[in-house]
């Protein structure tokens, strides 16, 4: 009896949080769905009635749609490859006994605490500025012509900035995985005649596969919606317009809420396709 009583009390106590979370999720989702079927132009007459699937058709047939999907996937993919690869290398290095280990680890984690807007601005003005940026000075020091990073190679620049922000996260998760590797396994492999490279490939990497899966899944969720980094650097110009950014432009720059909402629904669908795709490829690592 006591447990049943306890359970109903527990349900009662949890209800506010659950309801709040549900509302938090459901209200915007329902509103997005609702607006996506309306002709809603706030500055040009407000809600002008039912639109059917017009918004959906217009959003996909606009010339900006497919390039924005492509840009989104390139940025997500690029950042994932860079953060996982460098994260593994950094985790292995940080696992070595070095002097001042604690301080080094905190320094490595530091970028994660910088707000995206701030870090993008710092990169834009301090490093990538073609006149006063650190890279420009470096290039000139070696007698080369400074590169206008954000207009010449805008996509790569944004990938670098976002990777810099997410590298600490990947490193941290991979470091804990590296630390949980049984030393005797590495020693056994060494006695079995495995070279350092073979030891990495046959022992370390399989051990890390689970952690890599988690890094990939979590980062993908957040990377699909990056916005600030693009907003403060290129403002969506030079082919850096992601799906999120396109939606923003439709809603706020063109003041077309209906069209933007339809884009939002496409973004949800894209995110789910990517998620299913990832689950298929890497999700089986989590089953073990």
């Amino acid at each position, binding site marked *: 009896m006591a447990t049943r009583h306890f359970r109903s009390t527990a349900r009662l106590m949890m209800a506010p949080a659950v309801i709040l979370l549900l509302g938090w999720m459901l209200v915007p989702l329902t509103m997005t769905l609702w607006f996506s079927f309306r002709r809603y132009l706030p500055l040009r007459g407000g809600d002008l009635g039912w639109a059917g699937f017009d918004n959906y058709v217009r959003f996909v047939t606009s010339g900006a749609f497919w390039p924005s999907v492509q840009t989104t996937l390139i940025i997500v993919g690029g950042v994932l490859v860079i953060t996982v690869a460098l994260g593994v290398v950094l985790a292995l290095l940080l696992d070595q006994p070095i002097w001042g280990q604690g301080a080094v680890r905190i320094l490595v984690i530091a970028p994660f605490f910088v707000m995206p807007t701030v870090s993008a601005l710092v990169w834009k003005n301090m490093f990538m500025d073609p006149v006063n940026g650190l890279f420009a000075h470096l290039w000139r020091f070696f007698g080369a012509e400074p590169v206008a990073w954000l207009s010449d190679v805008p996509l790569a620049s944004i990938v670098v900035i976002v990777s810099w922000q997410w590298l600490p996260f990947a490193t941290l998760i991979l470091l804990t995985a590296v630390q949980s590797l049984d030393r005797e396994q590495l020693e*056994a492999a060494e006695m079995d005649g495995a070279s350092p490279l073979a030891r990495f490939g046959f022992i370390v990497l399989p051990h890390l596969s689970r952690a890599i899966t988690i890094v990939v899944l979590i980062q993908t969720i957040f990377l699909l919606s990056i916005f600030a980094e693009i907003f403060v650097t290129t403002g969506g110009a030079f082919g850096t317009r992601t799906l999120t950014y396109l939606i923003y432009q439709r809603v706020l720059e063109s003041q077309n809420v209906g069209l933007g909402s339809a884009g939002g629904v496409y973004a949800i669908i894209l995110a789910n396709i990517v998620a299913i795709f990832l689950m298929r490829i890497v999700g089986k690592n989590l089953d073990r």
Partner: protein
Amino acid sequence: MGQITLERVSKSFGHTEVIPPLDLTIEDGEFCVFVGPSGCGKSTLLRLIAGLDDITSGAVLIDGQDASDVPPAKRGLAMVFQSYALYPHMSVRKNIAFPMRMARIPQDEQNRRIEAAAKALNLTDYLDRRPGQLSGGQRQRVAIGRAIVREPSAFLFDEPLSNLDAALRVGMRLEISELHERLRATMIYVTHDQVEAMTMADKIVVLRAGHIEQVGSPLELYRTPRNLFVAGFIGSPKMNLIGGNEAARHDAHTIGIRPEHIDVSEDGCWQGTVGVAEHLGSDTFLHVHGTGFGGTLTVRTTGEVTLAHGDTVRLLPRAGRIHRFDASGLRIV
């Protein structure tokens, strides 16, 4: 071929010397057991031989060749770790094949050796399982299988049975002994289990704090322990050590007598009261106090004695079985 010689080998971690310089030769085909209390440097010594740790000074010779700077994989030794150190994401077959794969041995030769090892170790039905799906004893056998297929000149075992239950341990002990009979390869085996040391070894090396206290066959160590430490360490239950007047009567600082060399007899020269009588069925261990020697005396008698707590017994040490030690603990011959 697998003769291993240590010449003035020492090992320090930072400023602490764990192994002071020591000399030791292990002959080809010998089953050599390292025993000693916890922390005495058994594992360290094994790792020095394997090459997993670098020696601080001295030389490790394998078949007369200096191998001190040879990397572990090139020494022709195989090691079985206490934790087994199997590769968890590989099947048993892949685990066993791993050293051969690293050595680029042809596939059909690999298969032949895997089948042979699996048959010898009763692993044929488990080849496609992962280590996580095996029992402790089966994992142990996979670890041995992985060592066998390399056809090493010597095997190094670091307390391989300490994670197993008592019954399984007896079984595996026999299997390893049989393996040694069959392969005739050198084996170096670390344990702190008395029985393993006595039953398996051709040669026992008793270590204390990195020093070799005595090297010899099990019976040599049992019959003629070189000092008090070895006397107390080898044999189960432990040897009775008696000092004071009784020792002085034998012109010694301390005398030792094993429980199995004391008889309960009417005309015994020692007398005491039975404290606890442990009936094992085959034997009975009597813990006798009030003998006037200080402490209790352990006596081993047949299983059928009916002596119980509080009974008075007379005890007779067998002639020629009393070990005598001087003030520094060394055996008097």
